[in-house]
């Protein structure tokens, strides 16, 4: 039940953004816009990012168990993965939030194709990771 509730909260967040600011709640796009010197409207992006960070701090205080990390991944795994995520989300114009939630909600063909593609790539990535570690 918790998970459906979490999903509903995310849906409400995306709804607020669209209703009040007219923007799509795509996190990679919001962050990429902050990094791009040619972006004109940085204020709301920075404040959304600040909201995410403060939300994390608040959760860490009230529900620290939500940050449990169980993984055999090494630091370089996170570095490589982070780099791929950074390049891939800007090249493909979106991540789990922009394509997966907002785009699919609008029945955007681009977002549906992107979501199916990145979930498939994610499945393959987990298989390769486990094969290399002899976990499969």
């Amino acid at each position, binding site marked *: 039940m918790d998970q459906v509730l*979490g999903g509903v909260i995310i849906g409400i967040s995306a709804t607020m953004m669209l209703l009040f600011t007219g923007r799509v709640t795509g996190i990679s796009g919001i*962050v990429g816009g902050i990094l791009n010197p040619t972006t004109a409207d940085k204020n709301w992006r920075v404040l959304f*990012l600040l909201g995410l960070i403060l939300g994390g701090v608040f*959760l860490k205080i009230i529900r620290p168990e939500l940050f449990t990390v169980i993984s055999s991944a090494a630091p370089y795994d996170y570095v490589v993965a982070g780099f*791929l995520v*950074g390049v*891939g989300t800007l090249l493909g114009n979106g991540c789990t939030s922009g394509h997966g*939630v907002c785009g699919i909600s609008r029945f955007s063909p681009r977002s549906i194709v992107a979501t199916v593609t990145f979930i498939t790539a994610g499945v393959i990535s987990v298989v390769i990771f486990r094969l290399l570690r002899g976990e499969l």
Partner: protein
Amino acid sequence: MKGLVALVSGFLFAMGLGIIGMTQPHIVRGFLDVFGAWDWRLIGVMGGAIAVHSITYRFILKRPSPILDAKFQLPTKKDIDTRLILGAIIFGLGWGWAGICPGPGIVAMASGDIAFLYFVGSMLIGMKVFQLLDTKRSL
């Protein structure tokens, strides 16, 4: 005002991601581990978010403009091109490898676990490198 809405929305978004379990890489990788001990529960997340937003979005777009801005700024691209597919593949490979995507990575930095700092730091570098190279537009 727009900034305040963004701040509150970001905070709510973080709550949602945390409650769902997206800030725990093993839960995300469990969802992607279709050939192992598949944990399908994250489907409920996307389902819940999409159920809400797919309805509200229709009502919102009947308005001439958003409440605090002159016009809606929705994505305009329609074509399913190489950039979209290749980008999604690269993103998916990284997402599965770490079990972290951009939002949860940023939210989970508060945990103090260095893994998320490696991830987010490298993600920002990846974005910046992409932006610098993309001005030359080869794809």
